[in-house]
């Protein structure tokens, strides 16, 4: 029996068979791509060896021997380049995470402000967006660093808050907590508060669905979060003692320090990205038909509730996909931190380590894969969230 998908005429060669030919070309294409890739790799290897340039990833085991101004994990000069990698990665993630959080909050406020019925708020939000959307982020970073933070007084003339928090051109120094008697019971109390809040929320939602009555969930939760740990300190003692920063010969030492480079990059990037998120949020809200607002109002919801319960959940479906690209932009723009000496991935690893070891190809490959990994993680996370909030048609 002849089938339609095998139209090979009897006695025809394999070359005239379209299916065989298709396979042949596929295989040839794969071979070419693999061969080209192998050729590039081999060529690089040969040339590096020929020019006496060390290659391979062995350098990651070597001692780095230089200091780093900000490290979230323990680091000293005798640690390895591999450790420097993690320090740089965490510093990059720190900027991205704080930046994304701040940009989102500011962006939502701006987006809602753009549509406010108050003329002044509307104009201010528009002005903000039009200004910051149109300035290159690198200039914003320089502006914050050189024009806002540099002119602050030096450590000896710091602006201080109750002699505990100091602001100067070396950053913000604040007391750091260290564990005391009530440390564990404090965390226990927080856990209890958390469970209580979750239960309260469930109960309130169930009651709302059943009876339509609203319960002030937010304020009660906040109260619980503050009251339970606070009461616990009377029983078990204070959870923390505070290490207060003190002025020494050169610097204010002790406590936590937020370095000005971090402040500059986070402020500049969130201010910049917030302008874009603001527009995204505005378009998202406008995509929800005005009839929804009127319908919600006619059901007796207050304006805040209309926004929170009716408009935003529907607008999110339009907002989330472009929001993802803004998050990706922010994460990638964080590499501009290198310009002001913030020890991020680019400045530390693709900068200092590259230069000290001279292994450009390896360090650049590692750095690029890190940004790729960060970006893909953000995308996956946002896609998952997008799916979760997508309209479920019944």
């Amino acid at each position, binding site marked *: 029996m002849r089938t339609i998908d095998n139209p090979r005429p009897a006695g025809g060669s394999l070359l005239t068979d379209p299916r065989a030919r298709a396979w042949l*070309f596929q295989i*040839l*294409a794969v071979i*070419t791509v693999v061969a*080209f890739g192998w*050729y*590039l790799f081999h*060529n690089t290897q*040969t*040339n*590096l060896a*020929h*020019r*006496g*340039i*060390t290659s391979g990833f062995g350098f990651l085991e070597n001692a780095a*021997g*230089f*200091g*780093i*101004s900000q490290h979230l994990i323990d680091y000293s*000069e005798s640690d390895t380049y591999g450790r420097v990698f993690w320090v740089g990665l965490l510093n990059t993630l720190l900027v991205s995470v704080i930046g994304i959080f701040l940009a989102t909050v500011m962006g939502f406020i701006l987006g809602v402000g753009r549509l406010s019925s108050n003329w002044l708020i509307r104009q201010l939000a528009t002005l903000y967006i039009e200004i910051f959307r149109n300035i290159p982020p690198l200039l914003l970073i320089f502006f914050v660093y*050189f024009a806002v933070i*540099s*002119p602050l007084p*030096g450590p000896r003339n710091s602006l201080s808050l109750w002699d505990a928090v100091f602001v100067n*051109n*070396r950053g913000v120094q604040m007391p750091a907590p260290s564990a005391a008697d009530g440390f564990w019971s404090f965390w226990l109390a927080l856990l209890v508060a958390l469970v209580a809040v979750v239960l309260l929320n469930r109960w309130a939602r169930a009651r709302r669905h059943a009876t339509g009555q609203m319960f002030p969930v937010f304020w009660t939760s906040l109260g619980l979060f503050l009251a339970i740990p606070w009461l616990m300190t009377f029983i078990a003692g204070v959870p923390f003692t505070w290490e207060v920063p003190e002025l*020494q*010969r*050169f*610097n204010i*030492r002790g406590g936590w320090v937020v370095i*000005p*480079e971090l402040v500059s990059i986070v402020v500049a990037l969130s201010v910049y990205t917030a302008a874009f998120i603001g527009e995204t949020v505005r378009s998202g809200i406008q995509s929800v038909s005005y009839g929804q607002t009127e319908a919600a109002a006619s059901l007796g919801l207050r304006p805040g509730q209309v926004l929170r319960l009716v408009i935003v959940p529907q607008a999110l479906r339009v907002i989330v996909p472009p929001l993802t690209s803004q998050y990706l932009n922010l994460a990638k723009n964080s590499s501009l931190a*290198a*310009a*002001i*000496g913030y*020890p991020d991935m680019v*400045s530390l690893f693709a*900068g*200092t380590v*590259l*230069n*000290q*070891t*001279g292994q*450009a190809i390896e360090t650049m490959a590692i750095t690029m894969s890190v940004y790729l990994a960060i970006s893909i993680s953000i995308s996956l996370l946002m896609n998952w969230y997008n799916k979760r909030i997508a309209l479920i048609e019944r």
Partner: protein
Amino acid sequence: MIRVKSTLAALGAASLLGISGLAQAGATLDAVQKKGFVQCGISDGLPGFSYADAKGQYLGIDVDVCRAVAAAVFGDASKVKYSPLTAKERFTALQSGEVDMLSRNTTWTSSRDAAMGLNFTGVTYYDGQGFLVNKELGVKSAKELDGATVCIQAGTTTELNLSDYFRANNLKYTPITYDTSDESAKSLESGRCDVLTSDQSQLYAQRIKLAKPDDYVVLPEVISKEPLGPAVRQGDEEWFDIVRWTLFAMLNAEELGITSANVEEKAKSTKNPDVARLLGVEGEYGKDLKLPKDWAVQIVKQVGNYGEIFDRNVGAGSELKIERGLNALWNNGGVQYAPPVR
């Protein structure tokens, strides 16, 4: 089908290009002669070593080394094109062939010489790392710097020496790392850091660029050996020899009393065999190096001997007024010494 063909053609072309990219002895001189100039990597603005004056012309010791190589190869010191490079960019620029030589106050170390595919051709300036601080702090010695914030340039040996020195003396510090020396100087001025550390010659150079140079003082400690010199790619001995002997010619010229003013006259009338050999009157020493006969004459006439270059750029005849010190000739109390031409 047409698309497949053109892709294959592109691949073929790419592989040919890749093969011709291999380095080999003699390739650099041939390429330099063919394009008609020396592409020289210099620093991104450092008075005395390499910086652009008001007319946009590059000046400095490092620049003069590039000009001397051009004078030796072409008999014309102006046949140089400059690539200002940051400390971070410099090695990659040389490795990838973007520049023919690096003359950029770069410290000669074993790992750079052996693992990075570079060869250092000599030492143009014997330097050491020091500290520049604001007088207001009342610091007299580097040992008092416990707890200080220190500005450094990224990717330098200074970054490593700094940490060695503070660890050895059990002192704490916070490093702030910038890409360019200008940025670190600006941060010292704004008070972001207490101390600027770099090679001493650089500190003097950066000090005169500050708004109030007199408010700042260079501490007495020198914490490292920093022999600064030109570097070329490994694997091209011919080019290596040319760059190396250009510097030696300038040192020998100073030792033999040959200056830019008297070089032509000496070349005509000398009775001294050392001078005659260096200036190409006797023997074929230029030809050995694949250079013209009068290579050393051109270097000294157009650029000067080592002493002249030093004085003009960083010494008594310049704003920096740095003493010869280690950089005096060996018979004058220093360590600058060149093998003989013969």
